[in-house]
């Protein structure tokens, strides 16, 4: 695993955002901190907020990283890692849904870090996609929109991908969302079933399906870009073919559909046996759905589907989707020749399951 949070010693007293520079010639912003020494204690950087020493990672691996330094707890969080395609900002841990398989169960309290995130985005490497997740980011819709608008204006090269349950979009948001900057925003929105009752049950919120429809309507009128997401569990795998019909008709305006395999963490960790739907054993509903949406020209992907568990003809739809910092391969994967194209497994996925499940290519 690539560590995202590092022990840090700092001269500052209050939290701050800085960009680490190993090569002093690349320092162009006053928020850059330049490497001054690297010894047994780790690399030390000097910047506007004084000296900063980090542990556990060599200086070269930190070049260009944007970090949030928190002197009070002695840590530095790597908010944006240079060269990584998987940079995600967690803007809140509160959520108003309680999805049965949630990988990041919500908390009651909110720590407002929007100002730090905005600074981080402004310091990001050119042309990156910044992920925003939660909790539920649109619980702080005004802060969120403000961040996107200001960063978008200052940095026309940056795009955003925002995970949201879409329970909070209103007709009154449409004009704002029609601004050009929101063309660079893709909204990842979960929909688990074409049956309202089943969707509501899975997300743990009565009326969620209907509320989602009215958000979809607002997003359609705003011309928003939507990535629809469906996590597979035993309760909804047989709904996929009907969901595919919905995707090509009423939801025909979505940009792409992601069918996602379960991540064994959060709530899914203890509920695995009752949730995990083994697509390798019953690929038919998945295949029917894929055939249907592909026939109708919609983009569709299989995320977190190890390649060897997918029939050969559909493997091109299963990219290496798991973020680099939390991806691993099981011992049984060692002989596989297609690892570089495969999502592998989440770091916390039990090897016993993976070993028994896969068949190296």
């Amino acid at each position, binding site marked *: 695993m690539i560590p995202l949070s590092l022990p840090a010693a700092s001269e500052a007293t209050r939290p701050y955002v800085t960009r680490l520079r190993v090569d002093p010639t690349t320092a162009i912003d006053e928020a850059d901190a330049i490497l001054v020494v690297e010894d047994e204690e780790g690399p030390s950087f000097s910047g506007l907020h004084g000296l900063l020493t980090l542990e556990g990672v060599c200086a070269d691996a930190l070049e260009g990283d944007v970090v949030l330094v928190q002197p009070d707890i002695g840590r530095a969080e790597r908010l944006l890692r240079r060269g990584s395609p998987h940079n995600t900002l967690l803007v809140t841990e509160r959520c108003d849904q309680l999805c049965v398989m949630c990988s990041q169960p919500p908390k009651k309290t909110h720590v407002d870090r929007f100002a730090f995130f905005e600074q981080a985005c402004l310091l990001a490497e050119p042309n990156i996609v910044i992920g925003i997740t939660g909790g539920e980011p649109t619980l702080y819709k005004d802060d969120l929109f403000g961040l996107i608008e200001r960063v978008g204006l200052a940095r026309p090269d940056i795009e955003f991908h925002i995970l949201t349950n879409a329970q909070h979009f209103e007709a009154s948001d449409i004009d704002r969302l029609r601004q050009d900057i929101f063309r660079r925003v893709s909204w990842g929105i979960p929909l688990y079933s074409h049956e309202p009752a089943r969707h509501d049950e899975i997300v743990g919120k009565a009326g969620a399906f209907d509320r989602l*429809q*009215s958000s*979809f*309507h607002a997003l*359609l*009128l705003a011309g928003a870009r939507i990535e629809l997401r469906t996590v597979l569990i035993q309760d909804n795998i047989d709904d996929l073919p*009907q969901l595919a*019909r*919905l995707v*090509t*008709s*009423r*939801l*025909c*305006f979505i940009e792409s559909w992601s069918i996602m395999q379960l991540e064994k963490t959060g709530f899914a960790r203890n509920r695995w046996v009752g949730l995990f739907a083994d697509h390798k054993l019953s690929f038919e509903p998945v*295949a*029917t759905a*894929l*055939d*249907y949406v*592909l*026939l*109708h*020209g919609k983009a569709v992907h299989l995320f977190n589907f190890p390649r060897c568990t997918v*029939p050969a*003809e*559909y493997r*091109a*739809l299963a990219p290496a989707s798991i973020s680099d910092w939390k991806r691993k391969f099981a011992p049984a994967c060692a002989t596989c020749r297609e690892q570089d194209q495969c999502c592998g497994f989440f770091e916390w996925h039990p090897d016993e399951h993976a070993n028994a499940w896969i068949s190296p290519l």
Partner: protein
Amino acid sequence: MSVVPLRFRAINQGTLAINDCGRFFLASDNLVERIIGDDLTQGDRTELSRDGHFFSQDDAFAFDAHAYGCASRWDRAGELDYLILVPTLRCNLSCSYCQVSRVGLGRKGFDWDAETLGAILNLIDTLPTQRIKIEFQGGEPSLRPDLITAVIERCERFEHKQFVICTNLQDLSDDFFAILTQPDVYISTSLDGDVDTHAHNRTGAGTGQFLDNLERVLTEFGPDKISALPTIDPQNPPAIDALINSYASRALHSIFLRPINYQGFARKQHSSAREQSTEWRQFYERFVRRIIERNWADREVVLEETYFSICLRRIFQPGHDRHVDLRNPNPIGVDYVVIDYDGTVYPTDESRMLTRSRIIDLSIGDIFSGWDSEKRQLLNAHATNQFDESCRRCAYQPFCGRDLVDDLARYGRIDVERTQTEFCRRHLHIFDLIFEMIYSDDPAIQYSLAQWLRLPSVPARFGIRL
């Protein structure tokens, strides 16, 4: 109040119901009666609403999603990024059905002069896009490799570029061959079938030389470098397997069947080509059915009739095609233009031929003073099937298009009742044929449809039955 945005068409297997966004199903006679008689059951309503064939007018989301579906069928011509250039009108062949008009090899004053070339290079410099496609037409453009090179060199700045040289491959000079070695340069040529057919139609005694050159290009660059199309005389069509073999044996798997066009010089010598006869349509259908059989028998190779695939994809996958002969609206002089040897600008290659044949002057301007002319605006006011009375009643309207120049070429006017036009008859035939195949149970047909739609596997069904 409820909305049922369906139109109907009888096909061999029953009644096809297609909604305004182009989603469709095959309806039982009973269901058709209930729809027409406004006598839908609750079960009907639920089932129809799944694909947007039925919704309540109060359901604003359904209504707007439907509007989005309709709008996604419309082409939005973007910035000018496709130029069809005619560096010379001279040609080293004189085919009996020459489509493009040509003059003899030694004639003077039929190539771009320095001023015209300069104006074209200026135009390229001012294009606002990052993407460019340039097609070199003629005449025979390979007679002027220097002009082709000048244009290609000027396109250095574009992120995406593609150059297609339409050549008869009769003479392969070293200079021309050197141009072909560039990876973004492609060739389009004519191959009318077996040696005798091609010799009879086109190259006569020079046929051996053409075939040698074709072979050399294929060997050197592979089949992806080349697209070839056969021109078919419907009165005297070639043997289908011989035609297919002449392509398949060269690993050319996409065959664009083209009937002799009632344009250019062909108009004089082949007057029967004004209307494509039933013979042509029968030949076309036999050809498509034959490649389906061959695809089924040999799964290593997927043959296709190019236009059939284009129409098929338009049914299922709106917005995925930039084929300018079939789109709606089909505005002229916007995203692509033809620039002739003398700098005159035409909306399409066909309109260049019509003008040169003195049938109607369809030039819309020139490279020196532009082409935002009154004539262009007048034509573009009619460049859609959207408001045509006959098209509005036609179930295939969402998939179909409009071709003003074709109407002008055949009838000298654009207000002929739509169903009386060759464009309409041709597309009704092809869409009928496709839907008959969509609802066929023949695994060979289903296999080819899936391949032509570029699907990873054959779906359990292509169309729903209700």
